[in-house]
């Protein structure tokens, strides 16, 4: 774990209680077997493994967990959840942490993932449906990867697989839904 200092453990572990309440999952059940990390496709690229995320919550290391790149590199593939011998829904826990990290603006460790998700949703808000060309262009601009060529644009164009103009069905619906969601989320439940 990228912890630089001795960890001073606090007798009251608010973070653990918060995560358990928020997700309904029993984090204390985790006995650190590592099966989650063993099968996780992206664990090799993470700064801390999914198992260490669970341990971090158990010890109340909020910053270490929420600032990790790991929670942004998790692709929600649910292999961990499927196989956890303590039947913990790890993918759900990490998803909640990602939402929390996003809400608290702690996305620096994998900023690009957050930018991608934000851009994606923005496209959906604008058009109701995803516009892939728009997503690629916007993402490249906002992530500062101006020369990012991941979209294989020329070959895709030549095969007629990209539409230049977005479809806009349902756009107004999505705007309304998004507005209502924001409203509902502001209200404390």
């Amino acid at each position, binding site marked *: 774990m990228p912890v630089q200092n001795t960890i001073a453990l606090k007798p009251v572990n608010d973070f653990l209680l918060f995560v358990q309440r928020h997700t309904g999952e029993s984090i204390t059940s985790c006995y650190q077997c590592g*099966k989650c990390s*063993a099968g996780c496709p992206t664990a090799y690229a993470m700064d801390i493994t999914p198992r260490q995320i669970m341990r971090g919550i158990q010890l109340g290391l909020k910053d270490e967990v929420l600032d990790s790149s790991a929670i942004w590199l998790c692709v929600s593939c649910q292999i961990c959840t499927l196989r956890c*011998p303590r039947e913990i829904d790890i993918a759900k826990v990490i998803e909640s942490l990602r939402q929390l990290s996003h809400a608290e603006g702690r996305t620096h460790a994998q900023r690009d993932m957050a930018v991608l998700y934000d851009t994606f949703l923005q496209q959906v808000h604008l058009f109701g449906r995803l516009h892939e060309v728009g997503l690629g262009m916007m993402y490249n601009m906002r992530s500062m990867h101006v020369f990012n060529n991941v979209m294989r644009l020329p070959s895709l164009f030549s095969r007629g697989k990209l539409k230049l103009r977005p479809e806009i069905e349902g756009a107004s619906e999505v705007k309304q839904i998004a507005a209502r969601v924001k409203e509902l989320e502001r209200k404390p439940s």
Partner: protein
Amino acid sequence: MSRIGVFVCHCGTNIGGIVNVPEVVEAAKAMPLVAYADENKYTCSEVGQGSIRDAIREQKLDRVVVAACSPRMHENTFRKTVATAGLNPYLLEIANLREHCSWVHSDSKKATAKAIDHVRMAVAKVARHESLFPKQVGLTKRALVIGGGITGIQAALDIASAGHEVVLVEKEPSVGGRMSQLDKTFPTLDCSACILTPKMVDVAQHPNITLLSYSEVKEVRGFVGNFEVDILKKAKMVDHKTCTGCGTCWQKCPEKVTSEFDLGLGQRTAIYIPFAQAVPNKPVIDMENCRYQKYLKWTQTEEGKKPPECRICEKLCPTKSIAWEQQEEIVTEKFGALVVATGFKTFDHSVYGEYGAGRYPDVISSLQLERLMSAAGPTEGEVLRPSDNTHPKNIVFIQCVGSRDDKVGRPYCSKVCCMYTAKHAIMLKEHDPEVQCYVFYIDIRAGGKDFEEFARRAQDESGAVYLRGRVSQIYQDGKTLKVLGEDSLIGRPVEIDADLVVLATGMEASEDADRLAQTLHISYNIYNFLIEAHPKLRPVETQTDGVFVAGAAVGPRDIPDCVAHGSAAAAKVIGLLSQDSLTTDPLTAIVAPMKCVGCFACKAVCPFNAIEEQTTRDGRIIASVNESLCKGCGLCVVACRPGAINLRGFTNQQLLSEVMTLVRR
């Protein structure tokens, strides 16, 4: 008028920490018929028991309530206490303030109120107790041991050596159990066969032991000292009285089937002994697979040709021992005590899809590895991997498969697999110095004499690499197996290319353990392991008198513990059988002759056939209870509409007064 004494126990702080004991004492003093009440720090201690005796004498008490722990804990202790002070031991009642009160409640006020109620009920009940006198019944000085693994063998030998007759029932064609499948045994690495075989032979030769192999217990009647057991002897189709075990038949039998004993890795014939050192060393015929049986069962409607008649075994047997006319039979035997030692089976790893669910030939169980390592096994001790018979070099072990896993419904630790895996790592290195073992573990559980040292040896001397983590997946990649794990100590995923993967599968209760337990009226837990009367203090006894349990049937256990357990059960049986008569529990049903109308509704419900017919002097036929058969269940009492039959210790009046004292307080 009774003079009741009430003794309230603090149990250190176990009770006193929650229940306000002085308040309970004060409340007791105010109860009707209570002549004396006091408190004790530890009532079951010498001092505590002494104070009861003193009070009985000094206060002329005629009945006693002890308000302490569960009656299942100390009822007998305190019965003896009051008896030594001259009271009838049945003039005692226990109020459970510990297990049912202080240990489960945190609100002191409410717990105290409840404690007072429980004392009140006990007082109401004890006031209606009568003096009871146990009777003596005879007993059959023979024991039945069910299961012929190392545990059952040890128990049978110990009981037999003490001079009692023993019948040992084993469902397989040979005794030996799982231990006979092992190669060497931790922590000393002696050869399993070398230490087991002599004991198996002793069983066969002991004058006091009758071995019924290929047999099962069907039905059990009676009670401690006087059990009557129906034993099913399966048809062996071989007359073991004349068979000399020459082996001609099983060498010549043409029908080959996969061997259960070698766990699918080897073959046996249709007429077979499961392994070379089998006891009895005489064959049985597997009727499912025997060609002659197929020939007999073949009908015209089936497709294909009629199979050959075969009967080679019959033709070649020098002693004419093949007995096609043999039928299964049920024999009924009498016993004074029973020992259940039915052992375990290993977890079936095919539920683990992520480990290939049995699809990958080179992913094997530890017990299969034992067969591969055994000189008497299918590969004659050469460790060859099943897919291509090559010598594996990189071998990965995965511990806790089917143990400590809620996902597969097995949250418990199987206790022996850490140790046997260390054993395997050590032995494989001895077999082939080029072997590299990797062991994935979660914790290493090596509690036991010389165990930790042994487990260390696997790493320090045999160079096994231990990785702390549970493997997530195995997949076949060409000829190798990719094993995906995490080394949780360094916190990085690891990937190993393995030639062979060995799953340390956990221990499960044996097939049918629940059915057998039901037949014997003993308890079993949700995993079908048998439940002992007390996990610490009565580890081989059960709630049913005269039925004892031992070995891996009770829970995961290694051989040293199984042997100790087998001997412990034997000691209990010997103690029981050394008595000339048994004292029966006097808490039985009793009929009031004047009230009985002779309807025999009681007889219809009595599970123990304890109700008999009796003619009164005035010629009426009424019910009477055979006290040595009655087990005091009370079914008859509820069935009897005129209220003529009652249960001592739990009479209608007593239960009613308990209820009344509660609702009218």
